């Protein structure tokens, strides 16, 4: 066991435990907050593996931006605070999901560990300059394409959010028929 081994074991255990908590907790907001811990400690894993630039980008983009998006989505969809056992899935579904999750883990472990698990890796820390040279050299066209992808995602998000909703049109249609008492319920439930 080297020093890096012990460091990675410590950070990786927190990552795995918080990932399990993020998918099993009954508090909706706690799931997002455990995701913060998972992503943050994963940045620590990258740091131990000698990828400082990736670790910092992970902190900036994932912990900074993506988790805020998730929290905003939870708030905008009026997620209830506190325990919500009525929102959790049935035991059958959870059991099936656990079987599939365990099968995925076993499959990955059976493929990855025998072929690569025995190696000892000398990390290449402090290689930000090499990554930057390659990123803006060999990888510059995929990099530019990525900015196009971000633009497309922005426009797509706008287009989806401007899409006319059925809920706003249905009460108007019902209001055109004065005989139905459903009009009132339609409006209030909207």
């Amino acid at each position: 066991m080297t020093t890096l081994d012990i460091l990675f074991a410590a950070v990786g255990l927190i990552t795995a435990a918080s990932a399990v908590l993020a998918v099993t907790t009954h508090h909706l907001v706690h799931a997002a907050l455990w995701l913060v811990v998972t992503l943050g400690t994963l940045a620590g894993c990258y740091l131990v593996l000698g990828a400082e630039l990736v670790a910092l980008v992970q902190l900036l983009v994932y912990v900074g931006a993506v988790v805020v998006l998730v929290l905003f989505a939870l708030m905008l969809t009026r997620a209830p605070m506190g325990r919500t056992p009525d929102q959790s899935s049935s035991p059958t579904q959870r059991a099936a999901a656990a079987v599939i999750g365990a099968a995925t883990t076993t499959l990955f472990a059976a493929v990855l560990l025998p072929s690569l698990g025995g190696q000892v890796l000398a990390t290449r820390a402090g290689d930000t300059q090499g990554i930057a040279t390659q990123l803006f050299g060999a990888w510059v066209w995929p990099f530019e394409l990525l900015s196009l992808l971000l633009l497309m995602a922005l426009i797509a998000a706008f287009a989806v959010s401007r899409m006319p909703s059925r809920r706003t049109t249905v009460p108007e249609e019902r209001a055109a028929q004065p005989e139905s008492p459903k009009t009132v319920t339609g409006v209030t439930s909207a």
Partner: protein
Amino acid sequence: MIHLWMPLLLVCVLAGTGAYGVIARRNAVLVLIGVELLLNAANLLFVTMGSVLNDPLRTGHVLTLFLITIAAAEMGVALAVILALFRDRGHIDLSEPGS
């Protein structure tokens, strides 16, 4: 020096928990959290392999940066879809049929 089985084992665990989260959750936002965990398992595999292979193009690390960006774009579009779903149905419970 670091033994390679530890990051690879973490990749396996993250992928398994991600798959569990995608299938077991009913709330659409929580399903997305499972998807994020799956993507992060892929990221960790990229970083590990990028550190192992003595690659002059630094493929592993550069592709991880790309994947983080793509995941952020995916997240933005997916949350827009979820909000449209919420406006349309009034809930984002994936186990209930649409009205």
